[in-house]
């Protein structure tokens, strides 16, 4: 029983990572109707920046904050310089560009920071014996807390601030938003920036567990997709819940059903099952469009 509880809790911890990345994906998808396949690689790149800062002697939390800000700038820059120009191109080319970014960031990480697997420090390792009676490690508890705070912040931002409202409006109906004076172009750029920051936090939180290498996030991205789909690809709240659920399913499935060597197959099964049973996701609405 305590083993089951242990697996569930550590599933929740990794689920938080999937939830953050799923939220990043949904944020870009809602605004642009395109999935950013480079989200995971961008997050890995951000994590390398954080590691470089830490190794240069910057205290952990300062490096953390600086990385979040730099990633935000990176996301904004990519949208303003690159993706904006692809807005009118065929949908296929837009996917092509995001695949191109995936390749570029993956190669950049390896080129600038090396292909060897690196350790990444955790700020929560003080009590290494584990907490809650040894059920979870200090880091797992810490990273769950960070993710939950982050998700609440994002929720608060969209719910209670003017900019958040403007961004929701722009995602819902770009045309009408322009008419009431919202600068839709900038809300898109800010959305990209926030997605990049979310990814960066997810990367820094997961790196102590899985170690840092240029391909660190490729599996995470897939689980995040599964989470986003499970919760409803149009629904940020659903995506977060879906991410946590996928983390638990993955951990329990890996421990009791399929074993670790087929874990990615589990993501495929989840995605296919959601599409068959409930295509709009658990919390998504089936969208009815008037034509």
């Amino acid at each position, binding site marked *: 029983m305590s083993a089951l509880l242990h697996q569930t809790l550590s599933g929740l911890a990794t689920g938080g990572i999937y939830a953050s990345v799923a939220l990043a994906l949904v944020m870009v998808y809602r605004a642009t109707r395109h999935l950013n396949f480079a989200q995971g690689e961008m997050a890995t790149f951000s994590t390398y920046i954080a590691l470089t800062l830490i190794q240069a002697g910057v205290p952990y939390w300062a490096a953390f904050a600086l990385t979040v800000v730099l990633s935000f700038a990176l996301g904004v820059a990519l949208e303003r310089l690159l993706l904006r120009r692809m807005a009118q191109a065929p949908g296929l080319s837009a996917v092509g560009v995001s695949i191109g970014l995936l390749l570029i960031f993956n*190669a950049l990480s390896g080129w600038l920071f090396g292909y060897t697997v690196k350790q990444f420090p955790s700020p929560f390792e003080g009590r290494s014996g584990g907490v809650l009676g040894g059920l979870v490690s200090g880091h797992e508890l810490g990273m769950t807390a960070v993710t939950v705070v982050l998700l609440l912040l994002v929720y608060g931002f969209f719910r209670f601030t003017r900019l958040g409202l403007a961004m929701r409006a722009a995602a819902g109906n770009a045309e009408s938003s322009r008419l009431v004076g919202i600068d839709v172009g900038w809300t898109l750029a800010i959305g990209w920036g926030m997605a990049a920051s979310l990814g960066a936090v997810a990367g820094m939180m997961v790196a102590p567990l899985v170690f840092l290498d240029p391909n660190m996030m490729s599996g995470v991205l897939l689980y995040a997709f599964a989470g986003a789909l499970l919760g409803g690809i149009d629904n940020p709240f659903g995506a977060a819940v879906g991410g946590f659920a996928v983390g638990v399913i993955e951990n329990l499935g890996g421990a009791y059903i399929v074993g670790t060597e087929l874990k990615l197959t589990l993501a495929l099964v989840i995605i296919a099952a959601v599409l068959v049973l409930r295509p709009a996701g658990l919390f998504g609405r089936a969208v009815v469009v008037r034509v």
Partner: protein
Amino acid sequence: MSRLAAVGVAVLLIAPAFVLSGYHLFQTTMLAVYALAILGLDLVTGTTGQVSLGHGAFYAIGAYVTAILMASFNWPYWATLPVAGAVCAALGFAIGLPALRLRGPYLALVTLALAAAVPQILRAKALETWTGGAQGIVLSGPEVPALLPLSADQFLYLFVLAIAALLFLAAHLLLRGRIRRAMAAIRDHPLAAEAAGIDVAAIKTRAFAISALFTGIAGSLGALVVQFVAPDSFEVMLSIALFVGLVVGGTGSLPGAVAGAGFVLFVPNLSELVSKSAPGVVYGVLLVAALFVMPSGAAGALRRLVASRRRARPDTA
């Protein structure tokens, strides 16, 4: 196309077997294999507008069907191709069934997950007696029929070329008339297509199955050419390469598929010449640059060039 031009193209296609040799002939053979795989992807992405990021999975399964039938059951190489095609078509149908009922990015997600899962499944302990696990399977190449005065490499190239030509022809015949127009309608305006009485889900699923069949046979040919299959050769990057080839080459065009195959086959090597330390960065930048210059791929750029020249000289049109 006039008869003369057709003969010219045929000569041009057969010539490499006698002009090139060794590694160059091998690469030309792989070019034909990749072009066929990309054409398979084009059959679903180009015609119905659904993005698949997992065609590497079908390529892998086609390759493994051939390898297993030859290594464990002593089948002749040519007999494995139809089986590989059939297995991939069935799998494509099963995968497409849930994903293609929906609009949006769902097919891309399912296929990406499939591409990630297949290498893991191929490595799995339970299947090791068939797949050889992580070690893979070594094959012997096709034997040259006794009557033909050809080397093994020449025969292989011509065999691949013949199968590819046959499949191109089949695609051409299959996609004539009503079904072609139905697929274009689905791509351009799904709702109007449905209102016009087209069974959108059924057409999409069938297109995906045929597409998987083509790429599966390409994989099967690839296994014969490389004479070795292992999970490491079929990671997600293969699927991404096929997609990149399609986007760079442009949809709905045979020369486009060949151009795209050339891009994914040769540009990584060229990138290595530009920068030894970061070929991947050069490759990615070239990809993004190509999409900026030619948003509809090489084929689209060519079409536009031809159209603008016709406009400039209306008397010759």
